[in-house]
């Protein structure tokens, strides 16, 4: 492909401007879903086109890009996206969280704390937290407008009634800035806490559903729960990363079918590599 055949960052400037406007609106109304005209991309819907469009709209030649998929820099999807962005921008890439300025991610937030210079772009499959209770898009929007969120709590209540506890795993609904209930994309509960009062900017893009939303820095983000069933993290006690020895991080579980043993290693591969390298010194 000849880079000259395409605009910088693939999208035309008009598209980028529209998406940026949607992003700005999203930032001014934390947690509120803003519709946008989702463009055609060489990647199919369901493969991260929402997050990708945000990245392409905000990336500049001096940015440093990191892309992860469930914490991993090396997965096929992460590599594909990195290659694509690189070819139409020439922007520097990294696996080092601290060095990056834009981090596009599917379903995880990096272990290392993000700062003022970071923008984390999350790929979102289903932006509507009320979808499973209210199928009508129009009615759901009216509910958001009226702060009518009994349906969101009902979802959790029903789980408690059926299973004795909240079973919502990834994508736990949160209340943003005390106003909008948001679906934070399927990040584990562990990562949900990282959204609250963060130093960085979080942007969420759903390409198939054509919605963008945002959590600006230092915004309150509180998981929904009940007085007698408070929000609980996943249980990571007694787990140790077999590569770098880290504890109290989010783990991938690896099951060895030959020996029958379970092993744990850091989900965030970049963090793991850094940690292991630091320990060897």
């Amino acid at each position, binding site marked *: 492909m000849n880079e000259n055949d395409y605009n910088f960052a693939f999208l035309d400037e008009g598209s980028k401007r529209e998406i940026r406007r949607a992003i700005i609106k999203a930032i001014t109304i934390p947690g509120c879903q803003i519709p946008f005209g989702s463009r055609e991309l060489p990647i199919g819907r369901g493969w991260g086109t929402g997050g990708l469009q945000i990245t392409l709209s905000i990336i500049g030649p001096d940015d440093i890009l990191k892309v992860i998929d469930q914490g991993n820099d090396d997965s096929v999807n992460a590599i594909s996206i990195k290659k694509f962005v690189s070819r139409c921008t020439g922007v520097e890439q990294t696996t080092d969280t601290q060095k990056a300025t834009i981090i596009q991610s599917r379903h995880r937030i990096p272990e290392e704390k993000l700062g003022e210079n970071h923008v984390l772009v999350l790929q979102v499959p289903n932006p509507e937290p009320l979808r499973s*209770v209210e199928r009508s898009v129009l009615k759901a929007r009216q509910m958001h407008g009226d702060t009518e969120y009994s*349906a969101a*709590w009902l979802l959790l*209540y029903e789980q408690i*009634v059926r299973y004795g506890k909240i079973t919502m795993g990834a994508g736990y609904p949160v209340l943003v800035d005390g106003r909008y209930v948001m679906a934070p994309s399927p990040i584990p509960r562990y990562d949900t806490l990282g959204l609250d009062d963060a130093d960085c900017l979080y942007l969420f893009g759903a390409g198939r559903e054509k919605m963008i939303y945002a959590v600006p820095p230092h915004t309150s983000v509180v998981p929904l729960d*009940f007085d*007698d*069933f408070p929000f609980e993290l996943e249980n990571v006690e007694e787990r140790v990363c077999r590569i770098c020895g880290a504890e109290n991080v989010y783990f991938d579980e690896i099951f060895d079918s030959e020996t029958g043993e379970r092993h744990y290693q850091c989900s965030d591969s970049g963090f793991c590599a850094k940690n292991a390298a630091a320990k060897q010194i």
Partner: protein
Amino acid sequence: MDQIMKVNELSVVYGKGCDYCRDSNNPLEKNRCPHCMAVCAVRDISLELYDSEILGVVGESGSGKTTLMKALYFDIIPTKGSAYLAAYNNGETDIFSVSSQQQRAIRNNLLGMVYQNPVMGLLMNYSSGGNVAQKLIAAGHRNVAAMQERTAQLLDHMEIPLNRVKEPPRNFSGGMQQRVQISKAIANNPPVLLLDEVTTGLDLSVQAKVLDLIRMVQKQLNISVIVVSHDLAVIRMLSDRTVVMLDGQIVEHGFTDQILEDPQHWFTQTLVHSLI
């Protein structure tokens, strides 16, 4: 003797409307305006609901009675008119003039509605307890154990056994679904309960049971109820006072015993003489 709700000149018009049909003294073809062809489903209805009484609204299909209920529950937006609830700002604010957010709050806390079709009032795939709990959650409750107790209590009161509280209404019979709706509607002890043809289509014995439960609940909670039915027998059984609707207007209004024994309007007389 306190006034709980007041409705003033409520109209629901489908279509443009014109000067002719806007004047409620002008006759229409049934409820359709001969000039602009608008359907005037509800024409300038005014009524009051008092403390601890059951008001019956009787009329045939197309009389506008269900449209009236839907307007009062904010399911549809009236073309004109106002309504006041004693429990909302002392009856000083027209509930149709406030924001949709405020209307939701009124709906969640001050009104209960039971629809003729349970699908409109219940989430069929959620447990019956969950359905009732949603109303409690909407009123701000956040303690699961307390909500579970209250929902079980409400459902038990409607004679739904404890071992079915976790089942979705999809599995229930029609009468049972209506009882779940009633439990949900009264969960927050609203001052006003709206019942729209709640026993229509149910078997007679089931109908009787549901009506008995409604009567019991009304007496215990001192709720004011508006009962809509095309069936005069239901009205006779439940309501103290009755309003007769025809083509969107109230044609007669009085004590139920008077409506039944000394009907004045020709339509009321027709209805009464049609009682099986």
